Structures are given as C-alpha cells and as structure tokens.
C-alpha cells in the first residue's frame, strides 16, 4: 500500500509538471496576442 502511494505520486507529479508547462505556454501566448493587438491599434 505504501509503495502504491509512491506510484500515484510519480503519476501525479508528471501531470502537474506537464500541466504547469502548458499553463505557462497559454499565458505567454495570450500576452503575445494582447501585445500584438495593441501594436496594431497604435499603428
């Protein structure tokens, strides 16, 4: 049972890392789109 906790921890850690990275990608993409919109507006 104790070993099972380690397995679950490894699986959860994997998806937390992937999820965290995807969140940073989405936020960077949104920021860029916003900057681009502002840039076009100022032209």
């Amino acid at each position: 049972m104790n070993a099972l906790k380690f397995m679950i921890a490894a699986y959860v850690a994997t998806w937390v890392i992937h999820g965290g990275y995807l969140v940073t990608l989405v936020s960077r993409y949104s920021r860029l789109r916003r900057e681009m919109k502002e840039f076009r507006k100022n032209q």
Partner: protein
Amino acid sequence: MKRLFPILSILTAIFLAYGLYQALWVAPADALQGDVYRIIYYHVPSAWTAFLLFFINFMASIQYLVREKPGARSALKWIMIVGGILGVIAVYLPPIKGMIPAGMQPSAVATTVLMVPAFYFVVGWLFPGEKLDVLAVTTAEVGVVFCTIVLVTGPIWARPVWGIWWAPGDIRLTSTLVLWLIYVSYLVLRRFSNSAQTQMLAATLAVFGALDVPLVYLSIWFFRTQHPQPVIGGGGSMDPRMLHTLLISWMAFLCFCFLVCWSRFRLELLKRELEEAHAMESLVGAGGASKASMPLGRSSR
C-alpha cells in the same frame, strides 16, 4: 493545419488515456517490486523523449552554426553521409563489434548510427534558415520539461525500491542532472542575454551539451551504477505485456510531445514576428522605411 491541431489533440488524449489504462490495469505487477514498478511507464518514455528532443536540438544547432558558411555546410553534409556509411560498416567489424556492450545488438547500434545523418537531413529540409534556431529553442525547452519529469519520478521510484531518494556519485543519476543543468543554462542564456551573438552562443552550448546525452545513455553499460541495466536492448527480459505497455506509453508521450512542440514553435514564431515589427517601427520612426513594408502591416490577421 489549424483544423489538424484539435483533431490531433483529441487523438493524443485518447492515446494517453489508453496508455494509462494499460499501465495501471492491463500490465501485470512486477514479481519483485509489486505495483511501484509501474512508474517505469512514465519514467522511461519521458527519458527517451527528452533524449530525442536534445538530439533534434543538437541537429538544429550544428546546422544553424554553419548555415551562412557554404564551405562548412558542405563539409558537414559529407561528414554526415560518409560517417553514417562508415559507422554502419564499422559496427560489424570484429574489433568494433567486440567493444559493443553485452546485450546490445549490433543492428540496434547500426540503426542508431544511421539515424544521425537521417535526422540531420530531415531537420535541415523541414526547418530552413532561422527556423532552425526556433526549432532549437523549442526542443530544448520541451526537452527540459521531460528531463524534469525523469529527475522527479526517478527518486520517487528509488525511495521504495532502493531505500534512498538519490544515490550520490552514481554516474547515471549525476550525468542526467548535469544534462538538465546544461539545458536549463541554455534557456537562461537565451532568456536573459540581449547580445546579437546570443543565438550563436546558445547553439554552441547546445552542441557541447548534447555530448552528455550518449554519456547518460551508455553510463549504465560502462560503469557500475545503482541504476539498473536497461530491460530493452540490455540483455534483460520483460513480459510481452509490459513491453507492449511501455511502447504504447512512449508513443502516447511522443504524440503529446509533438503537440507541445508545435504550440511552442508557433509561440516562438509569433514572438519573433512581434519583435521584428517593433524593430521595423523603430526604423519607420527614424524615417528609414515606410509603414507599408512592416511585417504586421502585411499581415491580414
């Protein structure tokens, strides 16, 4: 291409769910380790994917370094062709064959040798010019994410099996940590350096960093390590259901990796487009160009 992304995302999600189902319910428990060994289905595919990404990063970086030097580019092309042919022949020569670690098949080594020129030409053909640098930063960043997973899941697996989180001095573990640090340095360099030479410096660092990949991979053959020998291509045996699940997991991770790389690649292109537009605007401000020639002015998006 825009329509393809959601379709591929759904297929990848199904593939990942199937891989998880196989890993948790179909693959049998290990006779010695019990269920905790199932970490292998995330740990090993993540390591293979990270190695593959660092390898692509290496291929993109060397081509980026020689892209404006026709002589060096031509020399590198011939080194790849001749090196690939000689490498495959050499693998089957008795003195070289004798140096291949026990359990490693010469055909597997020959295939790996052939992958070097194959990847070199495919990467150069698909990503010409500046896109090589975009590919390099993409693969380095996503590779660091996968390598982080290897370094996190490894100790979680080691604790119940070895009784320790980390084996200090173990060459497989240390070289993997060094590999991760090299590519983190690469990303830090790219993030915080504003020099015109940043891309060239980063490409040079990537070429040296990639030398650590074979060391990580081969360390368990050439050194005594706490880390076990590989079960595939290392003379070990594995239940066919376990092997099937491992390969399914790797395929699912590769699909996921492809989608993440695609998104990161597009993000980098967008970032560069914006930077270029800002640079052009500065030129327009200085009276050096007309607004009509600006990249974003051209774009109808």
